[in-house]
């Protein structure tokens, strides 16, 4: 299928022996002027890039305690070395979290620490050369910011923070990544990552209403820009037409329909994803997040609900209140924002939905904890609710549910391999290899329990698995939305 070999799945997971340079050739397409300029980034490597990069690094260590503490504190204990899915899938030692951090740390030590200034060789400090800069571009685009390493680090060092800082430095010197920066441009000019204009979105939703009515005989609404609706739903734009994402959107609509809740989508904020986080840019992240606030104010809603999207839920849950708050104009009886899973779960608890799990008896389901939902957010009131609520929603909708191996779920979950701004075809080899640990765990439940449906609550996971499942001899359509299951189980016309 491509000019690389899909990793072989072993009987039990194996930590590979390191192979230096195994992924040195893998780097995403570089951004060009039309995508760099609207973001305020230089469109090619600036002349005094060393000086600019070092100043930026110094600046960031003063702005982010995480970066400063993480660069200082690592003792090279090796606890993280076998935790990254990209290392496990590629064996390239620079994909070990500590080694990835060291690409930046060795420059920090050289220019900002006494030991590195006077004894660089002793402490592994190096000058910022063009080779180092190229390594940054290569290997900081082999990190999906999934935070698995930080769970196991005795100091909580989060490589995501380091790779965000590195990407921001790269953008500052004019070496941006095309995929992320082009998409951010689309969000600003059109309103969403996929570049779907408001009119096209309206037409898509009308088609969707017709399809659902044809199939169910019930007029479920998918409203857009409805003034005075109670709930603004912000969802990844892939939900509007990509498979299997759209089944999730259909499910949200059916849930709101049966519960009799008034909701709307927004053409101004027709995207939950926030690529500002991927490139480590606070300003861009804030700008993208502000669209949500503006839409909520414009439409006069009382609540904001976020659809199935992993990194988006992280930004929404952890950052929105800081970036675009305070949300004191919304109904204080509900958390801001709420996840669609929390909404559906609550309705199930209150008996407001009529779900018939036997409608899904053709499916044997497992659940992939999406990395950013698992390790950067919560659902409900209880720590760990982000693991419990989706499973309860699934179990209310299906009869056959099986978890994957415990060391690969909950906060030990593996990233799908496409998160953090890497879901682009120019990184296909990385994505396929990075999916290996998840595919390994999936294969085990397929063998043992005949699992045939992999449920997820993240647009990136859904797209990534659609692409990578066939490389591991599994059908691409076994990945689906959690609300796709709800959609099939819900008995319309029985409760409303």
């Amino acid at each position, binding site marked *: 299928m491509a000019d690389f070999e899909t990793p072989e799945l072993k009987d039990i997971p194996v930590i590979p022996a390191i192979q230096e340079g195994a992924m040195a050739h893998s780097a995403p397409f570089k951004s060009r002027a039309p995508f760099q300029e609207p973001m305020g980034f230089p469109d090619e490597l600036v002349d005094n890039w060393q000086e600019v990069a070092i100043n930026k690094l110094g600046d960031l260590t003063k702005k982010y*305690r995480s970066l400063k503490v993480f660069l200082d504190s690592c003792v090279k204990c*090796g606890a993280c070395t076998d935790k990254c899915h990209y290392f496990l899938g590629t064996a390239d030692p620079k994909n070990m979290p500590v080694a990835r951090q060291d690409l930046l740390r060795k420059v920090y030590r050289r220019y900002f620490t006494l030991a590195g200034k006077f004894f660089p060789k002793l402490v592994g400090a190096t000058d910022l050369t063009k080779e180092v800069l190229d390594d940054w571009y290569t290997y900081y685009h082999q990190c999906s910011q999934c935070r698995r390493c930080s769970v196991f680090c005795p100091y909580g060092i989060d490589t995501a923070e380091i790779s965000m800082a590195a990407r921001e430095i790269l953008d500052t010197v004019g070496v941006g990544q095309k995929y992320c920066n082009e998409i951010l441009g689309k969000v600003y000019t059109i309103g969403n990552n996929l570049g779907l204009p408001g009119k096209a979105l309206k037409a898509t939703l009308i088609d969707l209403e017709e399809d659902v009515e044809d199939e169910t005989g019930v007029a479920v609404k998918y409203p857009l820009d409805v003034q005075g609706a109670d709930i603004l739903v912000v969802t990844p734009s892939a939900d509007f037409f990509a498979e299997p994402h759209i089944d999730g959107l259909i499910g949200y609509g059916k849930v709101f329909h049966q519960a009799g809740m008034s909701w709307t989508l927004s053409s101004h904020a027709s995207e939950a994803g926030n690529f500002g986080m991927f490139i480590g840019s606070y300003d861009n992240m804030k700008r993208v997040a502000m669209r949500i606030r503006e839409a909520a104010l414009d439409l006069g809603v009382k609540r904001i609900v976020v659809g199935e999207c992993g990194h988006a839920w992280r930004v929404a849950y952890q950052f929105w209140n800081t970036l675009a708050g305070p949300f004191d104009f919304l109904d204080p009886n509900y958390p801001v924002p709420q996840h669609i899973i929390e909404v559906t779960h609550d309705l199930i608890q209150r008996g407001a939905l009529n779900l018939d799990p036997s409608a899904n008896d053709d499916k044997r389901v497992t659940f992939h904890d999406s990395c950013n939902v698992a390790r*950067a*957010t919560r659902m409900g009131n209880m720590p760990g609710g982000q693991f419990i609520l989706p499973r309860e929603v699934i179990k209310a909708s299906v009869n056959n549910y099986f978890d994957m191996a415990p060391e690969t779920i909950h906060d030990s979950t593996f990233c799908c391999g496409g998160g953090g701004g890497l879901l682009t075809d120019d990184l296909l080899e990385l994505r396929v290899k990075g999916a290996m640990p998840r595919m390994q765990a999936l294969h085990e439940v397929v063998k043992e329990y005949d699992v045939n449906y992999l449920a997820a609550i993240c647009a990136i996971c859904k797209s990534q698995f659609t692409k990578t499942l066939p490389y591991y001899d599994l059908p691409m359509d076994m990945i689906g939305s959690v609300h796709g299951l709800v959609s099939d189980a819900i008995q319309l016309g029985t409760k409303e």
Partner: protein
Amino acid sequence: MSMLTLGYSVLFYFATFILFAGLAFRIYTYANTPSPLKIVVTPAPTTKAGVVYRMWREVVLFESLFKASKWTWVFGWAFHFGMLLVLLRHLRYINEPTWFWVDMIQPFGIYAGFAMLLGLFGLWARRILVDRIRYISAPSDHLMLAMIIGITGTGLMMKFVSGADVIAVKNFMIGLLTFNIQPIPEDPILLIHLGLVGLLMIIFPYSKLLHAPGLFFSPTRTQIDDPREKRHVTPWAKDAN
């Protein structure tokens, strides 16, 4: 006063100054560097008491390391808690009359010294034998282990091989504390032991030994998981854009 006594006195005053001033500066810097966003790694406690308990588990039990690697945990924990006991045991050199509990732990401190050595050699073996950890090790990572093994080894030698003049050492240490300098015993093993300790104190604030204060400023562990309930705003972030 002999040159030797003078040299070691100067070393200890200097090392103590560097250790405390350096650490104070680091802690001041960490404490005054903002965390613009909530980045706690979840599942995380939703209350301050919960965070204190989480940090206690990290500091005392090395919980995350336990999840990551049992071997590194065994060696790391044996080393650190051996060292804690040994350090407490050393209080007898600077406190007169010694507190009763310092007397009580004296025999355990001996075993702790061996636990330290076991841990240190185990950690070093991993650093050499495991290809992944060998790859990430800089010369300083090996030297640091060698230095602490040197300190521990000379310490144990004075207990079991050569025998140091404990009274004279105590006089020297209390003399330093009271600015009434007393002669240092001219025992080569003791001199190596104290010399390496002084060097370690000087290196501490400029090296990876900063992991000790760093842990207490690691936002992924120390933050409370309450971003929806409480708006988190820091100065520069408020003014951004």
